[in-house]
């Protein structure tokens, strides 16, 4: 059993990865929708996404939806794997105690 993933373990980042993982493998989630799901500020979400991006766990894409700029986010395969392992680690704690 792998140990905890220190990047994902932080509660907001864990929830971000949970949301992106629940979406399909080719599914993007808009920044504003993710912010509403997490109930955090733009700056807070942006900082956590930056951390996850640097770890290679998420990918961000900036584009225009009509004339409106839009940022959307997707979990990478490495991010999905790390998330699954971290959740398995958390479950093992519940199972073993």
């Amino acid at each position, binding site marked *: 059993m792998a140990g905890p993933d220190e990047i994902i373990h932080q*509660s907001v980042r864990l*929830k971000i990865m*949970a949301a992106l993982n*629940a*979406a399909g493998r080719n599914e993007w989630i808009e920044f504003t929708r993710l912010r509403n*799901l997490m109930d955090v500020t733009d700056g807070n979400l942006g900082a956590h996404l930056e951390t996850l991006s640097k770890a290679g766990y998420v990918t961000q894409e900036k584009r225009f939806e009509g004339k409106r700029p839009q940022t959307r986010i997707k979990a990478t395969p490495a991010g999905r794997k790390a998330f699954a392992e971290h*959740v398995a680690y958390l479950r093992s704690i*519940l199972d073993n105690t």
Partner: protein
Amino acid sequence: MTVDREEAGALLNAVEGIEGRVRQLLLYAHVSDYLFLWGTIWFVGFIGDYLLKDRAALLWLALQGIGLIGTVLIVARHRRNAGTQNWAMVARAGISVIAVIGFGTLWLSLFHVGWREEVTFWPTFLSFLLFLVGLWAGRTLALAAVAIFAISLLGYFVATGPYLLLWMAVAGGGSMLAGGVWLRR
């Protein structure tokens, strides 16, 4: 880093809560695509019915074909986005559309209902099916279905003569389009 049992439990609960909300959002986005498609079809079809009168049968046939192809394409797109392209599921979506249209057409023929009942049947029948899905998928969807059902049924009682067709186009088709927008909020 050490994680105790209490913290692990709380984090897993948070994960499950978020996963549930995301799945519901994706389902609503999926259903709203159908509402946009079929709301537009109803709008065009009933306006065509009003303008073309008895010659609208061909238009409805064409619109049903567009609805069938559109539904299959929506399912295919969502499966592709989910990363689980499944052609059996795409085929089932097409069969479902044919089954629903076939079921309604069969019973409308057997009951020999009048044109007002026939016009009112489809929006109320489809919104009833949508309501059943909403009972399992989420309150917003169920409420949208009830609103579409009520608006369509109201037309049967208040819209006289051929104005029922305009009612179904604007109120029936329009309420489906509005329901689609509401689900995407």
